[in-house]
């Protein structure tokens, strides 16, 4: 666990640093993918930074609207770096809207764009696992296995290491698949299905699961649903792009 990196008087938050490195490496990989697919990388970068900027502004605005009294007394808090003063759903909505408008204006195709960002998402998932390892979050359930690690007073499953390995395997699969001639959207859906499947399996070794109905891990239920949706959509996309598909003739009169 390395939650902070002390450089002189400066205490850098290691998890945040790892996530930033993940974004940088992920976008670099997305650029390589885009060049291979003869896509322009600039609009992809533009879209990312626009969504990120509007997401942040939207998240802060949404939080401020919901807590107007707090900002009335300390208006400077509006530019505070504290992530607590962000509303994730407001940020998500604002980022999505900004991305949609930008995509319409620049005539960016939706599904190929999702595919282009898939390598970035896969790299980011690895960075997230490492960030969890650095912060001690997403910790494992107690275990007596020899590879267990001491964390928060108990020998635990190294769930953050499992998470990082699973994300690395997903990146390997996604990168190999990206060389194939897949229908638009298929690469992204494969990534979603693999990631959800990984979470469904690995959540069983976590020690911080939120339980529903007494003993069911909520994250497993959500991961199963996401995996099922991704697999169904993947089937639909594959079927539609099948050259041997028989299209029913339209009946006249």
């Amino acid at each position: 666990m390395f939650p902070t990196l002390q450089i002189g008087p400066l205490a850098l938050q290691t998890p945040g640093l790892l996530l930033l490195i993940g974004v940088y490496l992920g976008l670099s990989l997305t650029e390589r993918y885009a060049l291979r697919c003869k896509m322009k990388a600039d609009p992809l970068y533009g879209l990312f930074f626009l969504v990120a900027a509007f997401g942040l502004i939207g998240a802060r605005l949404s939080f401020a609207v919901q807590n107007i009294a707090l900002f009335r007394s300390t208006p400077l808090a509006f530019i505070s770096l504290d992530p607590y003063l962000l509303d994730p759903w407001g940020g998500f909505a604002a980022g999505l809207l900004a991305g949609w408008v930008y995509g319409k204006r620049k005539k960016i195709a939706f599904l190929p764009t999702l595919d282009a960002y898939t390598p970035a998402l896969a790299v980011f998932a690895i960075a997230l696992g490492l960030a969890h390892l650095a912060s001690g979050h997403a910790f494992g359930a107690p275990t007596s296995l020899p590879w267990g690690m001491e964390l928060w007073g108990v020998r635990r499953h190294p769930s953050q290491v499992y998470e990082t390995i699973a994300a690395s395997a997903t990146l390997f699969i996604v990168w190999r698949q990206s060389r194939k001639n897949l229908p638009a959207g298929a690469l992204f859906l494969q990534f979603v299905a693999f990631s959800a499947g990984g979470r469904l399996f690995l959540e069983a070794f976590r020690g911080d699961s939120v339980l529903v109905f007494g003993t069911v891990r909520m994250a497993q239920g959500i991961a199963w649903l996401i995996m099922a949706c991704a697999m169904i959509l993947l089937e639909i996309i594959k079927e539609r792009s099948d050259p041997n598909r028989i299209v029913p003739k339209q009946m006249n009169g």
Partner: protein
Amino acid sequence: MQPIPRRIFLFGLLFLGLAWIFISRPTPGSVTNGLIPAPATGFLAPDFELETLDGQVVKLSDLRGRVVLVNFWASWCPPCKAEMPAIQLVYDDYRARGFVVLAVNATNQDSREKAQAFLAENHLSFPVPLDVLGETTLRYKVSSFPTSFLIAPDGIIREVVVGGPMAEAALRARVEKLLEELP
């Protein structure tokens, strides 16, 4: 692979997923539920008993049922000093509703006199327990100053804020949310 066998395979996979959810149900004790004391979000706040600057003895577990901010600081740390006035303002506004501040001074890395002088200069009135031996700072795995732990009425750590200074609005929002849990 033919379409039908592939679909059977996918349905099988989904069925296996459901079976895994059932098989991997947590056994008692495998999920924290806040029972283990550890200095992390979701865990029971490790207990400590320290003497304050004004000679009182404060024990964290005695404050169960109240919202507690445990803030680790030192007088040589600029961000610690910068966030103190905001903590005082929030403390003044919410102490009547059950909000407690324990500004633990890392006295083993600081000095009692310097801490006292800083508090007097800035008219800070919240309790300042002195961690003379550094045991509490160590138990809370404080790696940089300031580090704050927000503890809910049930004694569970709800948030750990490493670094600072914390914005007043952010602290107010955090405290208000936790105070809503009080009966």
